[in-house]
């Protein structure tokens, strides 16, 4: 699988053993290949790729810790990394919360790999884009087609070794009709799931219905949210809701064991089930599994890395993330229900069909109150029928409150994986019919 990376990890570990025999050390060797074809105003305007191998070394000596990484992976580069890291660790401030290394443990899965992603060429991605642009029927289009391939190996001085490999293929496209946009996104482990023609046809047809949008007054509206908008809800729950660090510090809404959500809501983080995108272990080497976060409306767990787990007297769930954010769930799956989308819409007497949310930012993490805007298509629903297109709104809404008991009026029967803006993950959810969403202003002010 990734034997060269395994060799790299063990080579660095050996160097640390020589330089600092008493040190606890962990090495992660990762290789990412990312190929991305962007198009705008219906032509390919950016077509990029990078293939990067990096080594990240954690050294803990005498109560002090340093994490260092490099992309210089020849012998000299690795020796310099070890020398620099061991030296810095001896000078580093004390690390009282060092949680120790992960002990040997087995993986629940090694990651899903698809050969079509590995084999995809720039011409293949351009072909998907070309099909999308043509199917949009002359409307101005924009978006991207992306393939990723990750391989990794992790080894530590406690004798733990794991490796994995995964692929993802993403497409994001809009069609524009006189400034009104329609969007469709999909994420998969397989290149073959990116049907540019079908997606282009869909957004083209939707965009044509967006002409002459009316402005409605701000206020509470019943809504049907499409999977693109649901993905934003999942993203923010990952950042602020189920983050073990924020939970430890009293900054999360989550109260374990309480029925904080409607019984129709079941949410997991799942990077390991075959067919799902994701890495089978985190940067601390902790194996990942299927983590149940909300079970039929009851808040069941939050994500932990080794430090937050130690503080919470829990076990790490394998969700370490860099940058001080705390543990992040990057592969959230909101379980689908049984209601086809047309039936979700048919149940609405007067409400809004919302395609997408945009630029959502948290006002207060404790309540998970966010402000943001609608985007890429809003329509008025009257007596169960999609009607007039509506101009965008600004909203200010507490997300958990919108999904609270009694507030979820229907869950769509098809969950669609949406691309992540970072990392190797996706946000998978169905359309949702919610009793209300608090629109606080129109986009025109």
């Amino acid at each position, binding site marked *: 699988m990734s034997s060269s990376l395994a060799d790299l990890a063990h080579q660095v570990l050996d160097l640390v053993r020589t330089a600092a025999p008493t040190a606890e050390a962990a090495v992660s060797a990762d290789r990412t290949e990312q190929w991305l074809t962007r198009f*705008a*105003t*219906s*032509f*390919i*305007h*950016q*077509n*990029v*790729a*990078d293939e*990067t191998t*990096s080594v990240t070394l954690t050294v803990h000596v005498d109560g002090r810790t*340093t*994490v*260092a*990484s*490099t*992309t210089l*992976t020849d012998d000299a580069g690795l020796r310099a990394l070890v020398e*620099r*890291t061991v030296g*810095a660790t001896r*000078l*580093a*401030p004390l690390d009282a*919360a060092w949680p120790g290394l992960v002990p040997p443990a087995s993986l629940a899965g090694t990651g899903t790999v698809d050969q079509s992603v590995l084999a995809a060429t*720039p*011409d293949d*991605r*351009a072909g998907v884009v*070309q099909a999308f642009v043509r199917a949009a029927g002359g409307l*101005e289009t924009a978006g*991207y087609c992306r393939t990723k391939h990750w391989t990794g190996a992790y080894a530590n001085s406690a004798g733990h070794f794991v490796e994995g490999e995964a692929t993802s293929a993403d497409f*994001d496209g809009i069609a*524009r009709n006189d400034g009104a*946009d329609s*969007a469709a996104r999909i994420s998969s482990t397989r290149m073959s799931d990116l049907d540019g023609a079908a997606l282009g046809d869909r957004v083209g047809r939707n965009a044509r219905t967006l002409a002459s949008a009316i402005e409605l007054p701000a206020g509470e509206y019943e809504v049907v949210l499409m999977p693109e908008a649901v993905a934003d809800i999942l993203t923010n729950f990952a950042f602020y809701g189920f983050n073990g660090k924020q939970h430890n*510090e*009293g*900054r999360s809404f989550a109260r374990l064991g309480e029925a904080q959500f409607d019984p129709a809501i079941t949410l997991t983080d799942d990077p390991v089930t075959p067919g799902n995108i994701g890495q089978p272990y985190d940067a601390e080497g902790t194996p990942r599994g299927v983590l149940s976060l909300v079970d039929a409306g009851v808040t069941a767990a939050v994500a932990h890395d080794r430090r937050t787990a130690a503080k919470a007297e829990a076990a790490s769930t394998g969700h370490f993330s860099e940058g*001080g954010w705390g543990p992040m769930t990057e592969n959230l799956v909101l379980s689908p229900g049984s209601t086809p989308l047309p039936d979700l819409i048919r149940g609405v007497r007067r409400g809004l069909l919302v395609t997408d949310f*945009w*630029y*959502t*930012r948290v*006002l*207060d*993490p*404790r309540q998970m109150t966010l*402000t*943001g*805007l609608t985007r890429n298509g809003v329509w008025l629903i009257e007596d169960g029928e999609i009607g007039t297109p509506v101009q965008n709104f600004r909203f*200010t*809404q*507490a997300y958990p409150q919108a999904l609270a008991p009694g507030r979820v009026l229907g869950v769509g029967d098809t969950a669609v994986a949406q691309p992540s803006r*970072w990392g190797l993950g996706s946000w998978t959810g169905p359309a949702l019919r919610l009793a209300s969403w608090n629109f*606080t202003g129109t*986009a025109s*002010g």
Partner: protein
Amino acid sequence: MSHFDVATVAVQAALDAGARYADARVMHRRTESMNARNGEIEDLTQQEDAGIGVRALVGSGWGFYAVPDLSTAGARLAGQTAARIAAASTQVPGPPLDLVRSPATTASWASACEVDPLGVPLGEKGELLTTATRLMVEHGADLAEGLYQAWDTRKWFVSSEGHRIDQHIRECGGGISATVVGEHETQRRSYPSYRGQYGTRGWELVRELDLTAHAARIAEEARALLTAPVCPAGETTLILGGEQMCLQIHESVGHAIELDRILGWEAAFAGTSWLDLSKLGSLRYGSELMNITIDPTIPGALGSFGFDDEGTPAQARDAVRDGRWVGVLAGRDSAAVAGLDYGGSVRSDGWARLPMVRMTNVGLEPGPHTLEEIIAATDDGILMDFNRSWSIDDRRLNFQFGCEIGYEVKNGKLGRMLRNPTYTGIGPRFWQSMDMLSNETVAWGTPNCGKGQPGQIGHTGHPAAPARFQNVRVGVKA
């Protein structure tokens, strides 16, 4: 082989593979960051990366390819692959593409740096952060955080037009914040700003911030906010402090004047702009007090450099003059498409990313008043400062910002502290309502500007001063 030689091999390989233009950047970057929490060090991270990124133009299609392999063979393969990717772009071709002129230059440039941030002992840095965070806990913070970040970047740029430029840019900065957790909400105060202050300077910048001197004050302010009255809802006179003005400029002017957005090149992801190129030179963006400059030559500001990542020398230009829109942030290709004659605002966040239009230092020229004079001239209003949340629509018109702290202004004096202050508006209407502007300018550094796919983190600078705006909607409620 020198890094220039490696870049030259890559450029030649791209030309040999059919490119009509190519450039290559070899970059070597070292970074260091440290976080402290409640008196203890939480994270010390050092990173080093090096590699080459090659850009090739075939027909009207761009290709970009990057690898960490700096061998001759690696550079040759990178150039060839960039050209191959560019050729694939021609499957969905755009209009004919030219590049505006950038004189072939051989040059070196380095930012000023008195104290190498990577050379300061780790113990000294740790002591600073642990002391400051401990002080905040002692003065009421439930969660006291401190951090610094330092970047040391060297780059070598070669183009098929004859550019050969190397640069050494050192950046650093830091800050502290105090969070208190109430029964139903959290409150936070930070110093000197949301993520700290940053610049193209050495460790002297962090020393000047004197973080420990402000620790007790912000912790006490955060705790006081928990019981302060909520910002009232309605329309009022709004005075913004300089730190919040930095973000106001960044979001509602800086991004709006990016030419790639105006041309629709960022439509699906980052969005477009409300600005229409046909109105460049005539459109009223704001009141006559509004003068916005694009100036990467400001010493020490975070958006400063000698040459951008297309080899165009740094130079200052107007974006808004006396309230009228007169300039954009542009690259060589976007400027050519728009019929403009300048680039100079293209950067990437590393060797593995495609250079794209990014803000440099986009700042508001100062006015004639002091903040004290502005407050004294206000009968009834609210002062807000220190950003807490930010959101703006995909055309950069409709914004809503939250600030950490607000104060009533009554009869020319500051009154009660207000919690959860927010304000909302539409860019040009808001800027046209600006009627007083302070002379107390600070060049704020924003080290976290996201844009592009794959995502890139940009470093931007924003000279900003307090200002007053009329009839602004405040106090938006959930």
